[in-house]
């Protein structure tokens, strides 16, 4: 699989240029680096949760960065592979906290499938569809799954998306220090893969524990997003857009 586009939003800002060199130092004691709710307009987004909008915004950022048009994604030729460890926690909590029958959160938005659903609706994705729940290692498997679908001709391109939000559930994660490090950095990241090879392996993109640890030190705790951040960093270092941007500055 060849990475042809990447879009990254984090609590540090938009794109890889916003990432710090050392998350702990840059965080200066803050536990959560939050991304504000994207200001997407349209009646359909009225009920959508923040994490849904982040998923859509990450894909939009990917398209803007690469110059790929929306029409390229549309249809059954694009597979959607989505991964998260915890981006449903906020909506689950909101729903649990509501008194029975008086909820304002529409129940389907509590499902992990709500984020990729909004992305699929927004960009007209009607092809192969896999949702995986878990941490960074799961995302490495998700990349393999995407590459497998490409290899076997199930799709022409694969959109791999990961979203993690923490602001609404930060207190709960305090009781799960065995699981997460600090700072918790909200992230939405999208990567577009097409058949072929880049400098990485075709299978799971050659992401190893060492690279994930590097992302952790640099960016902070991003759970399922870490492998895609690694790909976004690598893509940024090789992409035409980056070269043009560097030449222009």
């Amino acid at each position, binding site marked *: 699989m060849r990475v042809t586009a990447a879009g990254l939003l984090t609590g540090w800002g938009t794109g890889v240029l916003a990432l710090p060199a050392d998350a702990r130092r840059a965080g200066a004691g803050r536990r959560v680096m939050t991304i504000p709710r994207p200001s997407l307009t349209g009646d359909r987004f009225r009920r959508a949760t923040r994490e849904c909008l982040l998923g859509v915004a990450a894909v939009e950022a990917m398209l803007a960065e690469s110059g790929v048009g929306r029409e390229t994604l549309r249809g059954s030729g694009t597979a959607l592979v989505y991964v998260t460890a915890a981006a449903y926690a906020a909506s689950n909590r909101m729903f649990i906290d509501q008194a029975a029958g008086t909820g304002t959160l529409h129940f*389907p938005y509590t499902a992990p499938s709500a984020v990729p*659903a909004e992305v699929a609706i927004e960009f007209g994705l009607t092809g192969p569809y896999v949702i995986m729940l878990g941490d960074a290692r799961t995302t490495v498997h998700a990349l393999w799954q995407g590459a497998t679908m490409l290899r076997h001709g199930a799709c022409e391109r694969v959109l791999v998306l990961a979203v993690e939000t923490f602001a609404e559930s930060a207190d709960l994660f305090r009781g799960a220090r065995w699981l997460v490090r600090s700072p918790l950095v909200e992230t939405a990241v999208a990567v577009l893969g097409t058949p072929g090879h880049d400098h990485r392996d075709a299978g799971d993109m050659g992401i190893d524990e060492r690279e994930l640890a590097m992302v952790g030190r640099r960016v902070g705790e991003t759970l399922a997003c870490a492998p895609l951040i690694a790909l976004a960093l690598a893509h940024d270092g090789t992409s035409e857009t980056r070269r043009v941007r560097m030449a222009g500055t």
Partner: protein
Amino acid sequence: MGREPVAILAAGVITPVGADLESFWTSLVAGADGISSIERFPVGDLRVQRGGEIKTLPGADSRSPRGGRASRLLQAAADDLRTRFRLHVPSGRLAVVVGTALGGVEEGERALAGERVRGGAGGALYHMPAHALARHLGAHGPILTVGTACAAGATAMGVGADLLRDHRADLVIAGGYDALSRFVMRGFDALRSLTRDRVRPFDRRRSGLLLGEGAALVAMARDADAGPTRLGRLLGHSSASDGSHIAAPDPEGRGLEFALRQAMTEAQVSADEINLVSAHGTGTLLNDRIETVVLRRVLGQRALEVPVNSIKGSLGHTMGAAATLEAIMCLMAARHGMVPPTVGLEEVDPACGLDHVPGGARFHRSRVSVSTSLGFGGCNAALVLEGCP
């Protein structure tokens, strides 16, 4: 493009109508009704207070695993599977892939209520029950949780097959699970999706679904590595997106059609070769009509000649477990030459005209079956299975 079939060596289940494979099958054939009043958590304020609740769960006295009741369900299904199948590969080559709609959400409810939960809020993450199952089985290969909502049990089997084909594991325990909880009962109650009547898939009077709980697992291996003793084979799988609505299925069933066609292509199976259809058949107005339209469109005339059933009238909608339970039903149907009835179906809706199996079980020799699933978020999945008579 055709893909290498994958052998399904054995299965294990826990359901509202049976706590092991044999009693599950016997109950389905007998048309048992697993729906009862929910007793385990408060439902007095809800419009509908019934579901497919499992009253006695094996191991309920032991220490609660991470993931709570969801993990217990998975472990019970795994223990049932292991009564007839030995995990014969090194632990590093044993993978776990399970699908769920709700994970251990009940642990989240408990944590927010101030109760002490194993692992804190981290124990409520949806992927924790898969890890608890892996520990239970001693599996150290890939451990994956699939979240394609109520189609997840099918997607998990497809992902498991891919792990085997790519030699990322030598044995995969794949399937699905979900536990009933106040969380999900409240949610579906608020959506007015639950019926006060019984579940009536494809019936003129159908008025909604009822939820159930359970877990179902299969042991899968590469066909070439598997011996002659097996339940059957997974010939094809596809999961596809509607890109249409956050909760409702696409009105034309385009995602389901794509999944079904892709799965049949992967299986290299034509409509004429299909002998049985296990429908998602929730008993909602929209689902059953759309499923019928898609089956007619993809299978053509064959759709009217092949028995179609839904087991949700017996179990309720077991969400993440449903697709795997239905796949196992297909394999058992081939083995026993019998198709369980669609409990609750009495008067077929003309808009759902197919060769349904109302009333009692039907003697029918099947070999190749398809199973269809739909879920929140525009998730659709289809499996093509081959049974061993």
